[in-house]
């Protein structure tokens, strides 16, 4: 017994020693020795969850040569921004800000007020002229309004082309001999045909879902847009109604939109599960060849195309669904030029470090360098095999198992031409005849560019409320999260409640803080004007 015990204690000791040795080995890391004049930059943004970029990453190595910086992006989980913000707050509290990072949750105001981030007013013009000129003047005005003196630039804004619009299955329309609808009535006709006939051609005329959205009434903006409702990803926005800045959800047009959708739902044209679909379920229905038309980022449509094609729907074609005209309303698709703050620089950085980082950011955001960037780096974006450049997809790249991300992902400026141009460049380096995968890749680019083209010609409007700061919602979190709207829209559309409850919603919204928030929004708007 005693011997056994001694033996097991001995064993445990030996084990832990071995493990400790292992651990010491694990603790040692190989750092690329940066040259004398290379500055390490710690970079954080929402892409940091996708992979790490350390000093050994081919791009960091290239940046050291090109700009004299070692670009390091440690892993920071995103989780809808919650985890990111928590980690960032921790670092701020500890007085250890990352060097260049994307502020989140409206903390840029706090950081500027506390002098934690650097004044970039002069530097951005000198080091990032292309980006500076590409960003619209009104966005710079807004950015300056964030500073204490109202004239300084502390934040580099993210101005990204985010074409949120409708999509419809072109191959389904072909099968039924219908054109792409352009009006509300034509759309209903198409939806009825999707419902009644075997639009997806699987032999079952009953499994098609004409159109669908996601929980909280999200991602069905194409059904609200015809009524002139300002809305981003299902969240009603502030815009000009009757000459004043007001919340779009409490306008009479919203009542009409809900009434129309109520009809669609009763007729079985709207997915019965539209208000409970999670992202995953919704995506599963789209890629499972079940949904006829939906609303999303049209520049992301390539992913849907590829999955559908690879699962055997080889005739899949995605068409852009234009904003549907309504006889009584001036409809439009909502866009916001200013998406969010892009980057701030920690006040602890030396001017030289900021300048070098800015040069790298300028290079990343200059449309003229996009081909060079898309070509990427050996071992990450391509391999050389038999003297020939072989492109790697993210899948191939994951298979390399290095844990690296594919590219720096720090783009804060893009527009339709940039995105379409990048797609054309990628099409030029693909040989669709090489394999079915290549054909799918090529096809997805063709589809995406058709969509971007359709979107570019559509009725899209930047709304008046795009520059409202989160502070207008202070004290009224429910107003900020649109909870009341989501509850009423779901219950009225599915028929649990009568349409007359809409007036009750308007009343409740104003009483529960809407009045105050509207006043604040109007004040901020007037000040910005």
């Amino acid at each position, binding site marked *: 017994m005693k011997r056994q015990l001694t033996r097991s204690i001995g064993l445990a000791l030996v084990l832990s020693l071995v493990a400790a040795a292992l*651990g010491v080995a694990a603790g040692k890391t190989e750092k690329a020795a940066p040259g004398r004049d290379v500055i390490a930059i710690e970079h954080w943004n929402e892409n940091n969850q996708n992979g790490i970029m350390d000093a050994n990453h081919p791009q960091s190595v290239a940046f050291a040569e090109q700009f004299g910086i070692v670009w390091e992006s440690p892993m920071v989980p995103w989780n809808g921004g919650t985890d990111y913000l928590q980690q960032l707050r921790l670092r701020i509290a500890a007085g250890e800000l990352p060097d260049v990072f994307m502020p989140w949750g409206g903390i840029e105001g706090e950081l500027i007020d506390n002098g934690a981030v650097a004044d970039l007013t002069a530097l951005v013009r000198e080091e990032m002229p292309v980006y500076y000129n590409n960003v619209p003047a009104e966005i710079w005005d807004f950015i300056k309004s964030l500073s204490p003196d109202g004239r300084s630039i502390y934040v580099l804004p993210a101005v990204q082309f985010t074409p949120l619009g409708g999509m419809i299955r072109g191959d389904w329309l072909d099968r039924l001999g219908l054109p792409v609808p352009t009006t509300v009535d034509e759309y209903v006709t198409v939806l009825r045909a999707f419902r009644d006939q075997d639009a997806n051609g699987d032999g079952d005329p009953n499994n098609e879902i004409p159109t669908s959205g996601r929980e909280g009434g999200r991602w069905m903006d194409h059904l609200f847009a015809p009524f002139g409702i300002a809305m981003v990803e299902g969240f009603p926005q502030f815009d000009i109604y009757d000459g004043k800045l007001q919340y779009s959800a409490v306008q009479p047009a919203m009542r009409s939109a809900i009434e129309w959708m109520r009809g669609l739902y009763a007729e079985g044209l709207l997915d019965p599960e539209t208000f409970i679909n999670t992202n995953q379920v919704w995506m599963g229905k789209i890629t499972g060849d079940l949904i006829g038309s939906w609303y999303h980022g049209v520049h992301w449509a390539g992913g849907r195309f590829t999955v559908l094609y690879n699962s055997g729907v080889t005739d899949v074609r995605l068409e852009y669904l234009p904003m549907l005209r309504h006889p009584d309303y001036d409809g439009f698709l909502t866009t916001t030029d200013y998406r969010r703050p892009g980057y701030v620089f920690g006040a602890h950085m030396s001017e030289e470090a900021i300048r070098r980082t800015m040069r790298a950011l300028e290079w990343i955001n200059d449309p003229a360098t996009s081909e060079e960037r898309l070509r990427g780096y050996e071992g990450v974006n391509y391999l050389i095999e038999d003297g020939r450049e072989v492109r790697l997809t993210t899948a191939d790249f994951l298979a390399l198992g290095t844990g690296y991300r594919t590219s720096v992902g720090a783009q804060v400026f893009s527009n339709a031409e940039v995105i379409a141009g990048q797609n054309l460049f990628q099409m030029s380096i693909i040989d669709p005849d090489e394999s079915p995968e290549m054909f799918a890749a090529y096809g997805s680019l063709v589809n995406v560019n058709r969509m971007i083209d359709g979107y570019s010609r559509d009725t899209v409007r930047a709304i008046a409320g795009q520059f409202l700061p989160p502070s207008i919602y202070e004290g009224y979190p429910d107003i900020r999260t649109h909870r009341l709207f989501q509850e009423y829209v779901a219950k009225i559309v599915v028929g649990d409640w009568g349409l007359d409850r809409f007036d009750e919603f308007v009343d409740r919204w104003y009483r529960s803080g809407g009045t105050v928030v509207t006043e604040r929004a109007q004040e901020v708007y007037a000040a910005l004007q």
Partner: protein
Amino acid sequence: MNKLLKDSRTERAFLFLNEATLALLALIMLYPLVHTLAVSFSAGPAAEAGRVYVWPVGFQTTGWRYVVRDRMLHRAFLNSVYVTVVGVVGSLGFTALFAYPLSRSYFTPRKALSLMVVISLVIRYPLIPYFLSIRSYGLMNNIHVLIVTHLITEFNLIIMRTFFQGLPDELEEAALMEGANHLHILVRIIIPLSKPVFATLALFFAVNYWNMFLHPLMFLRDANLMPIQIRLRQFIAQSAALQDRSGEVGGRGTADLNRRTIEAAVTIFATLPILMLYPFLQRHFVKGALLGSVKG
């Protein structure tokens, strides 16, 4: 008496119901695991459309191949094994050293110390001061931060103390008479008699170390030090990003990669080591958990 009970019809009905309920419960608990396993071996589109239940649809092993091939994952796996093995051994040792005096009635500061333990169990530390103190100990970016901060956990300490209290005092007295000191008593008498509680706590500690997520995020920067949970999370994010954006194409072989199957493979991969540990400790587990909880 026993026979009578067994023969009674109501008793048999009760037993049957009991077994049926337990079997159902077991099934309910087993299903998610089996389902996830099935998804991990299914074709992407089928998994995506929710057509997989207990058996793989369109059998393939791509998800698993990606997971197994990942070099960073091998590294992370070793890191986690190291943290778990050293952590469990260290935790058991330190917990025993603390629990032993707390279990002896003649140890005067016993009550005060126990109270402090209970206070720290009820009131959690605020995150930012915690971060600042750990950093001031120079433990940033050091893999041992994961172990040092978890050597003793209040709950496990109380379980072990309670178990020690249940051991007869006479053993200790006899040993003292024979000239043993307290360290001898702990190592030669108390610990050998406490195998059930050690097995139980080993499992508790192991699960804790293996699943660690927040601490490495807060205190580690170096990718080579990250434990497995972080790497797996990152792996999922990477494959999700792949499906959400079509920004980068022009390569080969995207056809078989799917976020759902990768997620499932990753989930199984992360759970497996702990699942494998369980059967070996199970014998002691029930006994230990019960003993620790009722005696006091």
